């Protein structure tokens, strides 16, 4: 018979713990959850974890394990102990995110418009124009309602003092929101009594919010615009999410080969001939959008779609070109953008960032490589990075050479001791590092989905939470209460 699981041997360590205070008491917002967990009979928490994993498996939220010819499938790792955020904390975060997205949207419009921020010397023109997400093809575009970044998934971390910091902005095609919705469904089955007893803000209105936004940006004059989600296809790693969102929002799921430009409009090929499409929720990168404008070898795209877009006959979310702000060097300038465009102090700080193309900063980075996290400016998903404290001297040396060879491509940040939260490890709980990716939808208003995706580095001591690097996820509960 397995033992009863409690937190008696749990050590929060020198980090901010999401569930416990440094003295080991549960935080106020976690008390109910804590009591529920320790009241469960022996074996029960593991049984609920197993049931949750089986449910995810049956829902088909799986990936094929490479190297297994027989098609063995696994779920993305998931831990049923939720991460809790209290109301007051969330309200600050929410205001900070809205402020940040408003500024970033003005920045992107400016970059492809008058270029004031560069003319005024606040952000160097060379930084903007060397960003891999900068597309000169988009200069002069004016998207419907002036909105460029309709959907954002900002990555936040919490440092040793419990302060939320922005780690990166993902404005191109942020993924993961389907896991937020799926994880919540699973958790309602796992802890129904806790949901009854405390006020947890719902996340289920994401799909209607998405639909409202898409209809808001549709070309005017059509009372029932047709919206579709454009996916690269079934082999894309986020395909589950594409089908899920299309189904939940009640829009068509289309691939490039389903679309064709005829008579100046975008159409879908249907069993009854061609049907006009007014709005595309684009999950295909700019590179692959239109072979006549971007990459000519792309088979995923729709020839001529950019002309239709420029003519205002189809809307796209996110607007082509938004990726300019995903560059990690551009990221470093966001606090300055907030001051420049909004005349406000940032409510959310960046992680301190050294730009390797600045001589002084580079010298500092190279001298302190064993304490830094170095990232390639254009990469995402945990690729192309060096975690200094965890790297061997040889790895650091090799990375130093890369930085010297192409300083524009690297930024460095001091290693943040990310906050931790308990996860089930074998038959007990251990602390693991987490981040948080809230999703922001910019339509008629800027709206933040309460919570977001909590990603957890399941490897002991690891700071890398990306699913491609062995990360898992958790449900995120934002507690209700008086709004700020």
């Amino acid at each position: 018979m397995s033992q009863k699981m409690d937190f008696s041997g749990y050590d929060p360590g020198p980090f901010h713990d999401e569930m416990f205070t440094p003295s080991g008491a549960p935080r106020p917002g976690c008390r109910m959850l804590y009591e529920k967990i320790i009241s469960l009979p022996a074996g029960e928490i593991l049984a609920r974890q197993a049931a949750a994993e089986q449910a995810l498996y049956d829902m088909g939220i799986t990936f094929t394990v490479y190297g297994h010819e027989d098609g063995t499938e696994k779920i993305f790792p998931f831990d049923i102990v939720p991460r809790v955020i209290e109301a007051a904390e969330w309200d600050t975060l929410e205001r900070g995110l809205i402020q940040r997205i408003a500024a970033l949207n003005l920045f992107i419009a400016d970059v492809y418009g008058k270029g004031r921020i560069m003319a005024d010397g606040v952000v160097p023109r060379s930084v903007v124009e060397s960003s891999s997400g900068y597309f000169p093809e988009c200069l002069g575009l004016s998207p419907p309602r002036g909105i460029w970044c309709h959907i954002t998934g900002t990555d936040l971390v919490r440092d040793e003092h419990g302060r939320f910091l922005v780690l990166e902005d993902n404005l191109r095609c942020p993924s993961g929101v389907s896991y937020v919705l799926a994880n919540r469904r699973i958790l309602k089955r796992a802890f129904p009594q806790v949901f009854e007893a405390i006020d947890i803000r719902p996340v289920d209105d994401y799909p209607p919010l998405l639909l409202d936004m898409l209809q808001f940006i549709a070309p005017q004059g059509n009372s029932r615009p047709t919206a579709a989600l454009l996916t690269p296809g079934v082999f894309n790693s986020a395909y589950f999410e594409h089908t899920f969102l299309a189904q939940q929002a009640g829009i068509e799921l289309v691939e490039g080969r389903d679309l064709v430009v005829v008579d100046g409009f975008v159409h879908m090929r249907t069993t009854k001939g061609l049907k006009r499409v007014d709005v595309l929720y684009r999950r295909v990168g700019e590179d692959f959008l239109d072979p006549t404008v971007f990459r000519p070898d792309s088979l995923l795209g729709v020839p001529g779609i950019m002309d239709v877009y420029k003519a205002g006959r189809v809307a796209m979310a996110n607007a082509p070109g938004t990726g300019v702000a995903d560059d990690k060097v551009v990221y470093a300038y966001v606090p300055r953008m907030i001051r420049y465009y909004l005349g406000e102090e940032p409510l959310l700080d960046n992680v301190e960032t050294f730009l390797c193309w600045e001589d002084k900063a580079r010298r500092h980075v190279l001298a302190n490589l064993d304490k830094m996290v170095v990232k390639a400016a254009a990469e995402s998903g945990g690729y192309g990075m060096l975690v200094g404290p965890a790297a061997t001297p040889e790895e650091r040396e090799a990375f130093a050479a890369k930085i010297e060879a192409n300083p524009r491509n690297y930024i460095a940040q001091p290693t943040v001791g990310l906050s931790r939260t308990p996860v089930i490890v074998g038959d007990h709980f251990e602390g693991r590092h987490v981040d948080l990716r809230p999703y922001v939808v910019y339509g008629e208003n800027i709206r933040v989905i309460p919570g977001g995706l909590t990603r957890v580095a399941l490897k002991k001591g690891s700071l890398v939470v990306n699913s491609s690097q062995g990360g898992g996820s958790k449900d995120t509960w934002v507690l209700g209460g008086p709004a700020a």
Partner: protein
Amino acid sequence: MLSRVADAIYWMSRYLERAENIARFIDVNWHLTLDAPGAVTEQWTPLVRAMGDWDLFLEKGVSQDRDGVIRFMAFDQASPNSIVSCLSHARDNARTIREIIPTEMWEQINTFYHLARDAARSSKAILDNPYQFCDEVKRRDLTISGIASDAMSHDEAWDFLRLGKLVERADKTSRILDVKYFILLPHPTDVGSNLDYVQWAALLKAISALEAYRRRHGRIQPDRIVEFLLLDHDFPRSVLACLLRAQQCLHAITGTPMGYFGNPAEKRLGHLCGDLAYKGVEEIFASGLHEFTDDLQTRMNLVDEACYATFFSTFPAIDAASQQ
């Protein structure tokens, strides 16, 4: 609806129906072998012949006994028509139309696939007694049909789903008659014997037709059975009933009134329905039953090809125009 989506629904449905029918084929043969007199060796290869996979079967050098045939038909991932392959294809198609089909349906198809794959890994017990596995496959497909019927809007997607199912079922019912054709009786004089009747009854049972047949015709008579399975208007697995309902789906999709045709699919299917509806079973026997079903299968393939050209192909003319 998107052409690609219509194609995926049609094939998802066909593959599910095919998996169910293969389970029925294995089930009928299993029961036949139980009733065969001791001196008669078990006959399993007729199943493979009836399915039209005989060449592949020979090429792979599979043993021609029960284990070899069941493994080939149920679990061989390299055989495109095995139950596991069908469910894998059905799931692949379902995955691309998750936004069209109800969530419950997707979950059923997903777990159905996993069931068959897990069974393939531990197939020994199933080879010894396939009854439970075949029954489970039938039951699961019936569940999916139930979800489709009660949880999907009966719109265009539903018509394509039905179309795929009915075309596939018509083909398989014609093939199950072939199983009987290929199974040899110990002596020519056994035609009309007790053993012959047992075989016909098992065949009816395999496609859930025995009780319906009894109510309609009473005694087991081979010519009445052939008439029932090919030409009956009401029994939902008879070839004519399937094709008439498929015709309704086709016309619901296009809006063409019955009695007219607006595309090659409607023309070919209408022609075939007309031929069957005005055919007597005596004429079928006169020209040879096997020859008749063979021709039927060829003509149903032509209907399938016409559906592809009419609804699923990617409009080469439009592509050419849009390149300008």
